[in-house]
């Protein structure tokens, strides 16, 4: 186990930047977000959690596929090469780390593997960061319901826990071990600090967030049963604006659109984030739209995350990070809809 002073965080960041690309939380106008760091001094760990989830490190909001020219005869298209440096994703909370594992199942675990997700995942070392167990629990979060501890190292390559003015770092995977051996400036942690680390992880498991644990198969089945109960769905979606904020901030939402964006004959085919909440998500060229009503789209969202994903991939597509509730313009609490469904 190693450690460094929080004061020296910038040196640690600068060192990682020399080795490759560093993606870490920085403070912005509206809150914190993960960004590619250009100035080590901007790295800031005084956050609770970011607005947009770190899925953007593997699944960026814009991913260019092909550069083309619209000519009369032969479109000369150049697929965009993904040239990645070794990447370090620094300061990811345990629930967000878990979200990567869930997204792995979708993007590279079944069917055709998504080359962009896979390449980025392979190039990245994850440095997870435990939640502060002494800070009051945030009302929106419920990751404990989904089996994730507040200081859960699972999925991280290196896991970090703050102790006073120090940051303790422990390698969890061989990849993390390799990196930790090369990182600087780090000093050896003492035996006490190692014990503190392990105890902290255990304490994290007892850290209570709201809602009680539920079995994902029970949830999936119940949602299936009430699919045609339009009264229920109309009622729970009466406040929903059907915008797209919940989808964009969610670490587990993966819907995307593929668009060709052209200007004066030259363009790029790229994929961009899309949301099943958008009115035109399922709009067909004939003009027919299977989901014209807000309640149908909200039903799709809730069902996808808590029912269809379970049926298809065996796990709920949610890690309880609470971003959807925190940033919803009308304060809708998605998981409370699931709870209400269980009571119908």
């Amino acid at each position, binding site marked *: 186990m190693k450690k460094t002073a929080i004061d020296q965080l910038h040196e640690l960041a600068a060192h990682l930047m020399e080795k490759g690309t560093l993606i870490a939380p920085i403070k912005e106008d509206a809150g914190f977000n993960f960004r590619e760091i250009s100035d080590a001094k901007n790295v800031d760990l005084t956050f609770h959690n970011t607005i947009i989830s770190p899925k953007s490190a593997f699944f960026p909001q814009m991913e260019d*596929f*092909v550069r*083309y*020219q*619209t000519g009369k*005869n*032969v*479109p000369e*298209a150049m*697929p965009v090469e993904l040239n990645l440096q070794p990447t370090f994703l620094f300061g990811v909370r345990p629930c967000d780390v878990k979200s990567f594992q869930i997204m792995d199942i*979708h*993007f590279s675990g*079944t*069917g*055709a593997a*998504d*080359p962009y997700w896979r390449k980025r995942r392979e190039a990245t070392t994850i440095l997870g960061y435990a939640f502060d167990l002494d800070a009051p629990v945030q009302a929106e979060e419920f990751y404990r319901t989904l089996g994730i501890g507040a200081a859960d190292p699972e999925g991280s390559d290196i896991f970090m826990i703050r102790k006073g003015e120090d940051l303790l770092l422990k390698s969890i995977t061989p990849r993390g071990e390799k990196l930790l051996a090369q990182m600087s400036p780090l000093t050896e942690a003492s035996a006490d600090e190692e014990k503190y680390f392990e105890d902290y992880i255990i304490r994290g498991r007892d850290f209570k967030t709201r809602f009680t644990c539920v079995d994902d198969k029970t949830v999936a089945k119940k949602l*299936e049963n009430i*699919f*045609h109960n339009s009264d229920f769905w109309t009622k729970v979606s009466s406040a929903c604006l059907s915008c797209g904020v919940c989808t964009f901030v969610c670490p587990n939402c*993966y*819907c*995307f*659109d*593929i*668009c*060709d964006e*052209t200007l004066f004959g030259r*363009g790029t*085919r790229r*994929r961009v984030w*899309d949301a*099943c909440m958008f009115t035109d*998500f*399922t*709009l*067909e*060229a*004939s*003009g027919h739209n*299977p*989901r014209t009503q807000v309640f*149908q789209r909200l039903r*799709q969202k809730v*069902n*996808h995350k808590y*029912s*269809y*994903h379970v*049926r*298809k991939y065996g796990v709920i597509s949610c890690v309880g990070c609470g971003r959807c509730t925190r940033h919803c313009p009308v304060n809708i609490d998605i998981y409370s809809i699931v709870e209400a469904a269980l009571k119908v």
Partner: protein
Amino acid sequence: MSNINPYIPMPVEISRVIDEVDTHDIKTFRFTFLNKEDEANFKYLPGQFAELSIYGKGESPIGIASSPTEPGYVEFTVQRAGTIVPGLVTAALHDMNEGGKIGLRGPLGHSWPIEFLEKKNIVVVGGGFAFTTLRSLINYMLHKDNRKRFDEITVIYGARTPGLLLYKDELAEWEKRDDIKTVITVDKGDETWKGRQGFVPAVCKEVAPSPYNTVAVICGPPVMIKFTLPVFFELGFYKENILTSLEMRMKCGIGKCGRCNVGYKYVCSDGPVFSLAELDELPREF
């Protein structure tokens, strides 16, 4: 290039354009691959589809209309989509002639389950424009190398008017054969039409295929499906033995973008072919 990255289309060239219907909004395009290795890798079975890609416009998922027994090219029958707002890709494609070059991503989706169909009687029921992948299936089954694998084949195909029937030449060829029973009907005939007149569900009732050891493959517009299925249930067909092909708005075609789901299944990667028994598990609305 194509197999490593499933998002990058392969270049193809239009070698033939056939105007299928008298309203001139449905055309069959025959494509040849510009790269020989793409052609070698493009192994498909009837029922699969591909994304036709035109840079600057977008992509459109279209069922493959040719049979894999026809080497050297791949055919798609494409309708110019959209009445109020024309679809970008199909409109651009319809404006192209022989020699035009576009991109192709595929083959995608699951095919008609050929193994499941072997040693059985097959009843193929199609309505209007939905006949494309059925034609692929029929030509595959009729091929001399394959015909023995299937028992009796019956085709029931209807369109609104004689001018709207697809593949008119092939239909005439099939009618001459004795190893396939071809029943063509139109909702409303014209002066030159000497064939049957009647809606597809009614014709199915008349033909009354036996359900024993038989699989029905049904594709058509929603209204046709709505009235045809009860006929087959009455005839005694089990839901596992009725197959259909679904359509939803698609983008990636490989089960990643999350758009085309019906319940927990993605129409592109878990379908588009489904048996009615499988569809029963899924929500009736989307």
